[in-house]
């Protein structure tokens, strides 16, 4: 690829960062998404741990869970927003008549999601340190970076699933953008270890990368959930899902061009 083509390709990725950023900064709801709901959720659970007089390790266990969930929620919604904004504005056809590749669309929206959710992480980790004495730097910078990367990749996978559903089912699927992460929080052990779940949920949890990333980071705070090679499993599954979903996205986009969904969603 020549440098001019590379520059064009990067500009096309940047287009989606630009779009999501401008819309998010003008949207009160989007500001609530990164400031209000995560902070309210965090303190609600944090004060619950105080009331239950949990020891610092258990408090850490739960706070790591709630912060991870907020990071994933904010990051994945940005990936989903790349289609949702167009869907709500009925401008989907203008995006897809442009010569953009699906990976550019997904990557651009994921990048802005990473920025916004990293901000959420910073905010909540400062609060967790000040209010509940949980130090996120305790495991060290390396493990923290790996943990965050795992969360961002999990979010990419969840967001891509929502995008696929949107192209398949249109407006009917936009509820998935908010409900998917809730479902994951139930299965992946945000507030509890997965082994307390009834069959078959612990087995299902093992197919979700977040389970391994949580187990990895919590292990530095004295919790061992009995999983082996957690990073390999976590990154392996996340990578696999992202590749499969990228292919599926192309397939459903082709289907949307065949069935007329792209046109219908722009009317």
């Amino acid at each position, binding site marked *: 690829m020549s440098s001019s083509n590379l*520059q*064009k*390709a990067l*500009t*096309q990725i*940047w*287009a989606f960062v*630009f*779009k999501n950023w*401008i*819309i998010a900064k*003008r*949207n009160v709801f989007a500001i609530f998404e990164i400031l209000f709901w995560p902070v309210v959720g965090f303190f609600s659970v944090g004060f619950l741990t105080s009331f239950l007089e949990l020891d610092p390790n258990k408090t850490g266990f739960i706070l790591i869970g709630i912060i991870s969930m907020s990071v994933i929620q904010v990051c994945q919604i940005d990936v989903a927003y790349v289609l949702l*904004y*167009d869907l*709500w*504005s*009925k*401008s989907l*056809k*203008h*995006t*897809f*008549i*442009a*010569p*953009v*590749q699906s990976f550019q669309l997904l990557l651009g929206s994921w990048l802005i999601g990473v920025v916004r959710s990293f901000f959420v992480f910073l905010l909540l980790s400062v609060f967790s340190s000040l209010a509940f004495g949980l130090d996120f730097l305790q495991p060290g910078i390396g493990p923290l970076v790996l943990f965050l990367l795992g969360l961002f990749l999990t979010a990419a996978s969840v967001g891509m699933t929502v995008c696929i559903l949107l192209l398949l089912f249109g407006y009917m699927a936009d509820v998935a953008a908010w409900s998917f992460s809730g479902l994951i929080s139930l299965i992946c052990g945000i507030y509890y270890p997965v082994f307390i779940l009834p069959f078959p949920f612990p087995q299902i949890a093992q197919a979700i990368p977040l389970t391994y990333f949580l187990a990895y980071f919590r292990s530095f705070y004295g919790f061992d959930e009995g999983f082996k090679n957690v990073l390999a499993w976590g990154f392996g599954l996340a990578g696999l899902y992202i590749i499969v979903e990228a292919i599926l996205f192309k397939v459903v986009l*082709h289907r949307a*061009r*065949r*069935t*007329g969904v*792209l*046109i219908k969603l*722009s009317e």
Partner: protein
Amino acid sequence: MALAIQAEGIFKTFRSGWWKKREKQALKGIDLQIEEKEIFGILGPNGAGKTTLLSILCTLLLPDRGNVHILGMDSLYDGHQIRKRVNMVSGNANFLWSLTVKENLHYYGMLYGLTGKEREKKVETLIDIFNLKEHQNIPFDELSTGMKQRLSLAKSVINDPEVLFLDEPTAGLDPDVSIRIRKEILSIHRERGMTVLLTTHNMKEAEYLCGRIAFLKEGEILTTGTAEALKRIVRIGDQIRIEFKGTIPEDELVRADGVINFTISDHLCEIIVDEGEKRLGALVAMIAQGGAQIKKVTLGQIDLEDVFVEFAKGTDSDMGLCV
């Protein structure tokens, strides 16, 4: 002249419903050839399949059967390459609501890979050309319908397309705004020399803008030709109205060259001829020589609307010709 758009045997059926499948055949074997730099109109009533056809040609929709070549490239395999060289405008323009005019143009410029200063310059130029300066910082959802459509036109040329698709570009606009938009379309075409494919159900618009027109009805092209040629095909011709005193020589009128039909009532004779200007002198002379005293003569030209009405009446007539 090379072909910009070539479609052969395009079929499209839409299927809907989960349990009870419903099918609607939107296109039934469309063949179309549009030359480079031509403004070509697809005219037809609502539900004729105009938007479906345009969507297939601009790669937003895939046909069930048939071949589409845009600028020599196969739309099924070279969709991405085609998209670099085409663009579209749709009626009821819709863009990202909370982005301003300028931000929307920047966003679409980025989607077409325009970088840094090149994009900045392009956006400024388009804002100037389309008189959007005063509105450049206003969010899309606060613009008037006319302004939205103007933005849509500006966006449609951001990548200097070689083929521009216009899907009912003046739908829902006030008449004065529609006239302005049509002038802008002509001006874009004149300056840039791109191929334009336009769908409309507005006969005046098609007649004003298009070199050639295809009539589409129930998914089939009934005929293709210039506005003038189509008027000739339906054989409803021009109308000569003659107010007179005395007697009209009916026998001679029947035999006169170019007369398609005539009616005579109370000192008014209405004659339908193939070409009004050509036949007018001879007919007036013939009637005057036949003994009638002519008081007033008017020549009325039919417009495309009359042709459209004739076509919309049915397909059983002998109109299925290609001119």
